[in-house]
């Protein structure tokens, strides 16, 4: 399973922006996520962005839409070259629908279709695509709103509701208050596969009633069966508990966890993919071993370089006489070093 965050999206757009023809002077986004991708392209090229309906009905462009751009037309139909943007293309249904609507409205302008992510089989359906992405991968903007969610494992605190503060996390009356009135963060629109939380089993009733109050449907709720929070902390049981359950749930491909450190531990212990919700990093078990190898290599390189510099008995490269590095510059450099 592939995952793309907003960061990946903006990177994909920046490094492929040259693929867009030079004479494009209007961006049209297919709502909703296509409008978002189109907006990133528009702010990079400094062009106006409108949604598909505005374009089809030819509404006048307002002052806000024009903004700081340097365009000279007032009606969308007067633009010379239009770029039709969607975020991804899989079967091509949305794009075909949009194209049919445009055909029906008898628009004669040059129209180029463009998607950021394209399935390898459907690249012929669009004029421009930025990156190939096999299977309908998950993206940051739809991860909790797709029907795939039925198979995922999801943490509660930090994903579905906000984390308790230190004061609230007292395993007593303040914590009970928190459980009752926790503020929701990202409410999933589909049935969740498995809710796996480090909350203790004794708080099951409060947790279940909170979930019901916020209309969250789920397959099963797993809680940590330990007597109190102090023992949980002593044993550092939370990530191990989550990893063990996740490993045994063979039909579940992804765990969505809020804490970066726990996410790394779960990925390592379960050998499966874990998405850290708070920094949008996908932890893969293979990746972590590759990372360790890289680190070892890097360490050997550093040792070898050190040995070489000692045997050659040469100073660092900066020591060469060069007119570009003047003396005051050097002294200031020393100041900075002292400051550190």
């Amino acid at each position, binding site marked *: 399973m592939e995952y793309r965050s*907003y*960061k990946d*999206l*903006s990177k994909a757009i*920046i*490094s492929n922006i*040259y693929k867009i023809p030079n004479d494009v002077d209007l961006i049209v986004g297919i*709502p*909703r*996520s*296509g*409008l*978002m991708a189109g*907006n*990133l392209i*528009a*702010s*990079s*090229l*400094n062009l*106006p962005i*409108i949604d*598909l*309906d505005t374009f089809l*009905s030819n509404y006048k462009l*307002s002052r*806000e*839409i024009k*903004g*700081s751009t340097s365009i000279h037309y007032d009606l969308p139909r007067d633009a010379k070259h239009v770029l039709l943007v969607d975020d991804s293309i899989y079967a091509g249904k949305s794009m075909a*629908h949009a194209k049919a609507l445009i055909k029906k409205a008898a628009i004669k302008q040059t129209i180029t279709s463009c998607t950021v992510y394209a399935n390898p089989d459907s690249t012929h359906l669009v004029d421009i695509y930025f990156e190939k992405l096999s299977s309908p991968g998950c993206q*940051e*903007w*739809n991860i909790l*709103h797709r029907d795939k969610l039925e198979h995922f494992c999801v943490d509660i605190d930090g994903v579905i509701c906000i984390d308790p503060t230190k004061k609230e996390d007292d395993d007593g009356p303040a914590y009970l208050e928190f459980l009752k009135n926790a503020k929701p*963060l*990202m409410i999933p*629109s589909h049935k969740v596969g498995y809710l796996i939380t480090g909350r203790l089993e004794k708080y099951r009733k409060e947790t279940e009633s909170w979930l019901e109050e916020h209309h969250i449907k789920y397959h*099963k709720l*797993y809680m940590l*069966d*330990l007597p109190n929070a102090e*023992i949980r902390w002593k*044993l*550092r*049981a939370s990530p*191990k508990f989550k990893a063990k*359950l996740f490993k*045994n*749930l063979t039909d579940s491909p992804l765990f969505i966890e809020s804490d970066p450190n726990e996410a790394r531990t779960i990925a390592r212990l379960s050998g499966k993919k874990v998405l850290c919700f*708070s920094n*949008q990093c996908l932890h893969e078990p293979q990746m972590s071993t590759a990372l360790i190898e890289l680190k070892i290599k890097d360490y050997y390189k550093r040792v070898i370089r050190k040995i070489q510099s000692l045997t050659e008995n040469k100073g660092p*490269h*900066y020591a*060469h006489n060069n007119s*570009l*590095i003047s003396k005051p*510059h050097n002294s200031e450099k020393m100041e*900075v070093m002292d400051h*550190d």
Partner: protein
Amino acid sequence: MNKQVKQMKYRSFADMSRTIALNLHKIPTDVDLIVGIPRSGLLAGNMVALALNIPIIDLDGYLENRLPRHGFTRKLKINMTKPQDAKHILIVDDTIFSGKTIERVKVMIQEVPTDQQVSYCIIYADPQSLNKVDVYLEQLTSPRSFEWNLMHIPLIQKCCIDIDGVLCKDPTPLQNDDGTAYQQFLRNAIPLTFPSHKLGYLVTSRLEKYRKETEDWLHKNKIRYRKLHMLDLPDANTRRRLNIHASFKAQIFKSYPDSPLFIESDQNQALQITSLTGRPVLCFSNQKLYTPEFSRALMNVKIKSYHSRVLRKAKKLFNQYIPSTNFNLDSNPVLMEASPKNPDKAYPQFKELTEQD
């Protein structure tokens, strides 16, 4: 330091998406339509709408009461109605400074003949105008700049900017041969950014002998600039041996004391320029702003993590010689058996453990 310098702040798309995702609880729960103020407010509004899974429309669409559209791939949480029939709308903009835009929008909204509830939401709000909005997600004082407008604001006229990796794609190792392939690259480099203002000072470690090709390329891509600084060395080998990319750039950056920001493509060079000049450097490839405080903090964190690693290692060695009485979770056979099939069986030993205590 005798003068308090206001520190530059920078937010990328990724930062904004994080700010939104982690502050969603501040948004009223009964909101059923997002209205975005074009262009960047529409982007912020779009991120909010996708996170809450509710419809979004731009300001004009709302004022003219057009039906919002959404894709096929996912179902909305609520049934869609005409925008002006929604119960509670949230008007979203990315930033607020003086509040002029929001006041103009408020006048426009007041003319709409409905009695629905209207809330105003700003992602990055300046402390002086917090009272003008209902919800703000983060306080951010100026001077500040954002990934989505960096190349289109007047500030860019004073910045120092690297060429390779910012204005055009970096050469591949094959192209970087200091010969014919490199000249070919210089003529046909792929542009990455399309600034709409005159740029400040271009500072590149390309060699002075390639000035004509570079100037031609900049002219061809309609990039205007104040001055172009190039490295005056005989060939690429000398440059590699001296390794003065960062110190050269830092020296030029220092000679422009009013320049607020250096935009550099390489992460390591960005860090070096920051520590040499003590001024903010934006790394373009990972969209992070490096400040002297940041690099110092980074070093502290590294030292701390090194200390904790050493301590952990020492503890491990110590435990080998003195058998620990600690309860080991991994070797507990009961926990190994704990599976979704028999969750009731799990952890009886823990209970015994506490009873003994």
